[in-house]
């Protein structure tokens, strides 16, 4: 089976809260000192899902597309080092300032440009904006069936069987190919590239594609084509002041806490 995975490079979501800073005027997150950006964790799991499909089917390909600035190349290289075949970087100043819609539009054009594969896989959401819409928008634009927030993906002959995480359990869903899937963290850990694979991936060519290559006018993408407008970006503040319950023994601390909760009328 042929699979395409769309990935994104983002500021490390495990950045400690103390190191996380926002430039409110520019409405941008400032790069944290000494913490490198990473492939969005759900996207690494999406690549893992794709590689397992390829392994199970015995042939086919796993190709990677990423839209973004120069740093997007690193997400592609990471995916190649995990074992993906080819990488495509949608890179154009015209893409700047876009939203989920313009991103999905460009990705769908790139997918058509490369040929719609059997399966298209995305992470359930990019761990920067946490919207979780790009996979579904692409599915709609390409008129493909979709299943989102998945913890397991299996091939059964020509069709795909998945397990979707829902509030009160899991749903089993069967999809024909071609289809769109989005992967959730319950899928499990992605493989970690070995040094040799990282070196091989470093030598691999990544094909760059511009808006014009995809038949898109600059007015359709980036800030010009965006449907969602951002008005502010800021860090929330917490106004609680913690009271540490002291005591010489665990019993004293426990009793102190229960008392404090009663006095505050929480119990």
């Amino acid at each position, binding site marked *: 089976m042929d699979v395409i995975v769309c990935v994104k490079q983002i*500021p490390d*979501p495990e950045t*400690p*809260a103390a190191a*996380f800073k926002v430039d409110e005027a520019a*409405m941008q997150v400032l790069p944290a000192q000494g913490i490198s950006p990473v492939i969005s964790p759900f996207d690494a799991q999406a690549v893992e899902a794709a590689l397992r499909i390829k392994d199970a089917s015995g042939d086919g390909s796993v190709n990677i597309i990423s839209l973004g600035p120069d740093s997007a190349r690193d997400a592609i290289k990471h995916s190649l080092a995990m074992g993906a075949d080819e990488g495509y970087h949608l890179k154009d100043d015209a893409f700047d300032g876009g*939203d*989920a819609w313009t991103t999905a539009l460009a990705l769908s054009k790139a997918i058509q440009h490369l040929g719609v594969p059997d399966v298209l896989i995305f992470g359930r*959401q990019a761990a920067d*904006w*946490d*919207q*979780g*819409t790009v996979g*579904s*928008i692409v599915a*709609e*634009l390409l008129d493909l*069936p*979709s299943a*989102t927030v998945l913890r397991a993906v299996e091939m059964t002959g020509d069709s795909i*069987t998945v397990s*979707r995480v*829902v*509030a*009160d*359990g899991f*749903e*089993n*869903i*069967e*999809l024909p190919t071609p289809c769109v899937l989005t992967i959730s963290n*319950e899928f499990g850990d992605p493989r970690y590239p070995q040094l040799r694979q990282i070196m091989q991936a470093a030598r691999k060519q990544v094909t760059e594609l511009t808006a014009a290559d995809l038949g898109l006018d600059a007015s359709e993408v980036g800030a010009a084509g965006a*449907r*969602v*407008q*951002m*008005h*502010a*970006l*800021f*860090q*929330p503040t*917490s106004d*609680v002041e*913690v*009271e*540490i*319950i002291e005591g010489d023994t*665990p*019993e004293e*601390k*426990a*009793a102190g*806490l*229960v008392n404090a*909760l*009663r006095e*505050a009328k*929480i119990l």
Partner: protein
Amino acid sequence: MASILVFGETDDAGLTAPTLEMLGAASRLSGDLGGGVALALIGSGLADAAAVAGPAGADTVYTADADSVAAYQTDSYLPVAQGIVEQDSPAVVLMSQSSMGRDLAPRLATRLGTAAIMDSLGLEVEGDRVKATRSCYGGNARQVVTVQTDPQVVTVRPKSQDPLEADASRSADVIAVDVAEPTLRARTTGKEQAESEGIRLEDAEIVVSGGRGLGGPEAFADLESLAGVLTAAVGSSRAACDLGWYPPSQQVGLTGTVVSPTLYVAIAISGASQHMAGCGGSKNIVAINKDPDAPIFAFSRFGIVDDYKKVLPALESAFAEALD
């Protein structure tokens, strides 16, 4: 035509709590937008739920009542939802950030030629736009956004909005919508229900949650015992779920359940932003952590710095005594 069309969801009790909350928000916002509030229900056996829609704030209820749409499936709900939006032509479409809303909102928005804002926490009207405040960067930041195209599709985080006081004197016009036999491409073939003992996480007034610092799955039995004393639900951090110590259905956080109980007791949880995204709305957080510098204390009203193993038995007896 309504100014706001809410896609509701139903359960055994009628309209779900997030649906009532969205109707509350819609009533508040519709005044500024000029127009009424409509509720759309897709499912089977909707009469009882439709009957409480008026008292909860809806002026109109669209019911798409058929066995073929008894449970949510992307392919069966999408055309029905599209039909209702086209019939009503609202300015704003609200959906819950639920399993349905996450899946349906972006596809529906795209089909309607517009866009969706997901998981909003705050909603205000400015001119003819709904300004949504939402969490991003794993809870480290908030952004304020508007959809510039129409209709404006927005999903709403459960517990972020207040429902109205039910007003029995109000009633809503019910409009039955035809449901054509759906063409299913993706097909739900079965469901595994999470074994749910006790109180549902999202309904609980008190939640006791455990994290990686518990050191193993056995400790969750002790948390359950404490929860029994407090009539609480038990939650967990993703780290504990990923390690297989507790089922994913009990995960609290950005990618798990969002809870906002009166009391949230975080035991051996560090307080990562993605975890706080799921419990930061709690009215009171109590943390038990052996590390005095754990970030969780910055969000907590009360804290105990100690090994949970020592504190937990004492805490259970102290609570048992106090609540006796």
